[in-house]
């Protein structure tokens, strides 16, 4: 009897091993891929080599930090498909024929640093905060699931073997129902579920509530790229990659230009759909400088899988330096203009709209009430409306007020504002939001 039980257990284990082996193999497999991306010497390394994966080559992955620009040139040449020379430097969209090329081999300035997974199950981690919550819950549920599955498998296999039909064997009389047993196995899973729900919910609350002092970055998704708008005072610059400082909360105000997209940062374990007719938000705080992947996770058409970019987490002080440099680059562009054009170039887009579209006539910037409320000091404040409700002034409120001014009229003002539907585009409203926030 005891020996039989052992036989069953061995068989069960064999089944489990068979399935886990199928997933265990990739563990070594995935760690092979990185070398081409990071090691500058990889230029001449053929793909056969990287498949055979000398483990030494995988080590340097952690080395380069965000500022490691010098490696750029050799990395670009690190074309893993040995047959084809790496001629292309097309950075706008990953060319189709460079299929086996690592995404990072094409990009130059900031090579990905998230190539080594955090663990067997989870990708590299850029912050402990929300990511640790997610990972902890994930592993807790994984442990529970493996235990339950193992128990169920053992029970099914053992009982099947123990009570299998054979000569002379009949079903033994036993009860067909047992209310105590039923209640027990209803209540125990229920209690476990309550705990899991609470754990997930608490983690989610942290994830969805951005601290008030977060650095705000406008994020625009459109087929099939991302655009990030950084504010510097009243001015803005736009870049296709996300740059953030370390150890500071960052809040993304996101909007889509066309269909649904979803902004996915595996290294932070967060994701949020990006929608065409309203702003959605995502916040995170990076703790480890590096370069991490950004994917679009909501299907959006032909180049859905190419709609990816990177988030560069700068070292302390690096973000401000980067922003200044990039800003200067834009300023240089402005200097090329002459006369009126040059003057326009320096003025923020939001200010231009304010002055040219007629906002100025009713809304002051100095705190005095006109026909409409002043814009000064308005952002983020709670305001009450004539319909009895109240709410805070944020992106969605401004958007609504521009397109449908009668929806929420500030208490103490008359409902006289005309709609700007059709007159202001979504990108104009983006610019207004950016500018108002800085007032």
């Amino acid at each position, binding site marked *: 009897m005891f020996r039989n039980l052992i036989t069953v257990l061995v068989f069960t284990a064999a089944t489990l091993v068979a399935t886990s082996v199928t997933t265990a193999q990739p563990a070594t497999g995935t760690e092979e891929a990185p070398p081409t991306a990071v090691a500058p010497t990889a230029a001449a390394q053929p793909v056969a080599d990287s498949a055979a994966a000398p483990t030494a080559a995988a080590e340097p992955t952690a080395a380069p930090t965000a500022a490691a620009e010098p490696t750029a040139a050799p990395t670009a040449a690190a074309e893993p498909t040995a047959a084809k020379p790496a001629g292309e430097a097309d950075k706008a969209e990953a060319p189709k024929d460079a299929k086996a090329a690592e995404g990072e081999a094409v990009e130059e300035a900031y090579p990905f640093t998230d190539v080594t997974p955090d663990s067997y199950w989870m990708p590299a981690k850029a912050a402990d905060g929300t990511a640790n919550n997610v990972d902890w819950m994930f592993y807790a549920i994984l442990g529970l699931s493996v235990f339950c599955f193992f128990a169920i498998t053992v029970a099914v296999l053992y009982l099947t073997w123990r009570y299998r039909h054979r000569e002379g064997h009949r079903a033994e009389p036993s009860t067909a129902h047992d209310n105590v047993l039923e209640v027990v196995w209803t209540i125990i899973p229920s209690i476990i579920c309550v705990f899991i729900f609470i754990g997930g919910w608490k983690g989610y609350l942290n994830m969805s509530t951005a601290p008030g002092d977060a650095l705000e970055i406008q994020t625009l998704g459109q087929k099939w790229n991302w655009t990030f708008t950084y504010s510097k005072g009243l001015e803005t610059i736009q870049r296709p990659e996300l740059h953030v400082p370390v150890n500071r909360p960052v809040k993304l105000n996101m909007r889509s230009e066309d269909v649904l997209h979803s902004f996915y940062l595996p290294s932070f374990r967060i994701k949020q759909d990006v929608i065409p007719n309203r702003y959605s938000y995502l916040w995170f705080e990076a703790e480890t400088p590096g370069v991490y992947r950004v994917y679009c996770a*909501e299907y959006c058409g032909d180049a859905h899988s190419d709609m990816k970019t990177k988030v560069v987490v700068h070292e302390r002080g690096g973000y401000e330096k980067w922003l200044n440099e990039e800003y200067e680059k834009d300023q240089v562009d402005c200097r090329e203009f002459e006369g009126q054009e040059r003057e326009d170039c320096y003025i923020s887009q939001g200010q231009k709209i304010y002055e040219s579209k007629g906002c100025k006539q009713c809304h002051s910037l100095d705190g005095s009430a006109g026909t409409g409320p002043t814009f000064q000091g308005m952002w983020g404040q709670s305001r009450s409306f004539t319909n009895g409700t109240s709410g805070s002034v944020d992106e969605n409120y401004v958007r609504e007020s521009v397109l449908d001014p009668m929806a929420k009229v500030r208490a103490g003002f008359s409902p006289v504002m005309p709609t700007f539907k059709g007159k202001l585009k979504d990108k104009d409203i983006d610019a207004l939001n950016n500018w108002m926030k800085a007032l």
Partner: protein
Amino acid sequence: MSSEAATADSVQEPSYIDVKSGFWSWFVTIDHKRIGVMYLIAILTAFLLGGFFALMIRAELLLPGSQLVTAATFNKLFTVHGAIMVFLVIIPGIPAALGNFVVPILLGAPDVAFPRLNLASYYLYLSGALLLILSLFLGGVDTGWTFYTPYSTTTDTAVVPAVAGAFLLGFSSIFTGLNMIVTIHKFKPKGMGWFKMPLSLWGIYATSVIQVLATPVLGLTLLLLFVERIVGIGIFDPALGGDPVLFQHFFWFYSHPAVYIMILPAMAVMSELITVFAKKHIFGYSFIAYSSIGLALLSFLVWGHHMFVSGQSTLANMVFSALTFSVAIPSAIKVFNWIATLYKADIHLDSPMIWALMFILLFAIGGLTGIFLGTLNVDVHLHDTYFVVSHFHYVMMGSALIAFFGALHYWWPKMTGKMYAEKPAIIMSLMVFFSFNLTFMPQFVMGSRGMPRRYFDYDPRFELMHQLSSLGAFILGVTLFCIILNLLISLKTGKKAPANPWGGTTLEWQTSSPPPLYNFPVGQPIPLPELYEYDGLSKDAEDGGWQYKKDAGNEA
């Protein structure tokens, strides 16, 4: 065993297959058994087609970058694979094909309550299926089977015929559900109270309730989509003043209950198989029955868990997450009851039982991985990744479709009057188990490591896991094809099936295989054996099947 001596004391009537022949005798039949068989043929054809598209997808994903097809074609492939498998195969699989065949017989009735409506639903199904196929020839659809707006309202692919097809399929499903509800209510024989019904009837009943209540919402949603595309009325498209997220609420209000349209009958049939092959009364009958109804009702309250990252409010997310966990409980109860049924049983490992045991294990994985996705913060990471893809394949394919094949092997002798070759059936079902896990286990790992779904091109880090998955899929595809082949071969060479080949106590085993036109010999009382009581049965009938011992006095 001479076939004529099947039931010595009854007048041998011609079976429903032999009673008439020729194309028209099938084309305009109102016999529920023939309609069930026609459904089965259509569903298996659709299954092979959908499976072919799945293999195309897996072949494309063998390596990163473009291998066989362009990105646009790839998007059409996964759309049509999803649409065919969901709307044409799994939803009608057990309720419409097998349910149609067995429900009236399980009740001892000659047919369903509305035989003509039954035929009408079949032709609605065929028309919907043809429209879906037609959309392929009009260039295909690239929206994903979920038809999310505003992509679906702005893409220039053949969305309109596909949506029209899904609309018709929805009505086919509603009519079938209606028919089943009325049939079960009105045709229960004397002596069969609600809690003396076979569990497969409970499952079909709960399923039909969802079909009737939820499917109209899908119909209306698709109609609105249709109106928006044709007339340009802004409902979902923000460019026209609509709200794209509204579509997701409408869509999942149907499509989440639809998951239970797929899994409830699967669970019910598995309950049936486990008790029959364990030769022991099912454990916790009433708990299994109530949990079916519980699942049917709860399934209406959890649609928001598909939308945790859609921009839905934090409060809504919290409520939907909590409700989602409540769905886990009835499913767990069922699993425990199935396992308890095996205790002290006499387990006959015939091929349907192998499918049933596989079902328990695969459903356990599908259910347990659902806990990850119901947990709010974990879902934010896993949402729209391969983890989700793998999870719902474990539920829809690993559970619902495996149950369909188990049930098909169980009722095949009754439907066709032929026994299939048992050894190949068992070997291939085990191969399905192995290759299915090989296909989808790596996808869990890919997903949690951050591989988004519906990706034509992918990071080379995921290459090996994609290749394992593809390898599994190819083996799985070939095996399933061979399984269908094995069944078809039995039509030519199979031995004649006994009336009760497995020793079942439900009514369909008390009539000949295949049954006569009106299911039971006309003019004779229909015996109603004690449900799930196997003591009086032994495998010594003259036709090689099971029968009640003459002195047992089991006749009702």
